[in-house]
């Protein structure tokens, strides 16, 4: 009987830690932007994400990092895993350094939902190595 009392704290720790790690891993947001740079004339871009609120909406803004102004924006509906893979087109904007910011926006009001966090990735026009 006493042996079980010794194991109890370890079992309880496991019961807390395993779900916590699972939750963190599940809600880890990932974003891939392909390509993440291009010409001023315009080009198609694929946005791939996961880890957002499932079956909801994710808003994205292409933000000019110098002026902090939004150049383009949009939203996509997430699948049951909280992700999407979608195409948009980047043109009508000036050369410069940008960030693409993604955040949960269930009601597509262009605002980050309460108790949610966003994620951003660098983007540039033209590509740095050109």
């Amino acid at each position, binding site marked *: 009987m006493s042996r079980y009392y010794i194991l109890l704290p370890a079992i309880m720790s496991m019961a807390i830690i395993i779900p916590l790690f699972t939750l963190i891993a599940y809600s880890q947001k990932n974003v891939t932007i392909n390509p993440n740079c291009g010409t001023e004339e315009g080009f*198609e871009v694929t946005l791939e994400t996961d880890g957002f609120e499932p079956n909801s909406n994710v808003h994205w803004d292409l933000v000019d990092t110098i002026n902090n102004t939004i150049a*383009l924006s949009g939203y996509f*509906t997430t699948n049951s895993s909280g992700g*999407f893979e979608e195409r948009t087109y980047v043109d009508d*904007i000036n050369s410069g350094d940008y960030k693409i910011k993604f955040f949960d926006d269930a009601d597509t*009001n*262009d605002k980050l939902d309460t108790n949610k966090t966003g994620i951003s990735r660098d983007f540039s026009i033209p590509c740095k190595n050109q």
Partner: protein
Amino acid sequence: MKISILSLSFIGILSSSILFFLSIASIYNVHAATYDFNFAAVGDWGCNSNTDATVKGIANTKTTNKLGASELVLGLGDYSYQPTANCWLSKVASIDDNMKITIGNHENSAKTGFNQYKKSFGLTSNAYYSFDFNNVHFIIMNTQTPYTVGSSQYNFIKDDLAKAAKKDNTNWIIVVMHEPFYTSPTSCKIASCQGIGNLRDTYHPLFDTYEVDLVLGAHLHNYQRSFPLEYNSASSSKPIITSKIASNYNDPEGEIYVIVGTGGINFHKLIGKNSYIVNQQSSFFGHLNVDITNKAQVLTAKFIQNNGKVFDSFSITK
């Protein structure tokens, strides 16, 4: 016996009356069906899940408008944003039975699928044309080919407007083009996103002369609807607002200009609002849905978001 004869006569008269009224009603219904119809309009579609939602929104309008699903769909330019039209043509397959399109800057060359759009929609190489749908005359302009005074497009539009204005059975003239005359300031940085001065100086006076009612455009990836506007020769970027009423007009002077660039590709954020704009938004994809009713005397337009909500509505009565 006398009563029976009277009864039979009464029944005969009653039957004849019923038949008479039924035939009148039937004739009226045929006429109502001829006059009344519904159309949808939107541009800047792209090829993603928002495009699918826009197509679904147009197909589902039977639940939100008086007349059922759209009998005519107008593409306001910029479709697949790819080297071919394949993806977009596949996306709109369920609503393209009676679809008319204008050419945008993303499909105006062989490298961007122009020949495919031309073939699919029976366009000429110039891609400007006109057609009647019941009592509405539609003129589809092509802002991607020469349009200045003396061009073949200018001559066509001027002659076509003059003929349409004279027709007894034309209640409405609606012009469709991709790049617009007027816009509020947006995040779009290219010159054509500022409202094209040369285009409006050439055509807005013609639209006033021949009493065009509605001008539909896109190019700006957002929704904007103006008051009725007349051309201002002193300062053409500041058109004359002929009525400050927000939504229900009684045959106003000038035309209402609507930008519906909300097909799904993305948004150009609105960063201000010009005084001639009534309503505008750059947060929701959706389409403009228009009912022509009351023997073609009333035009009712609604911007329906892809989530089914109506953002803006207005009507014109003649």
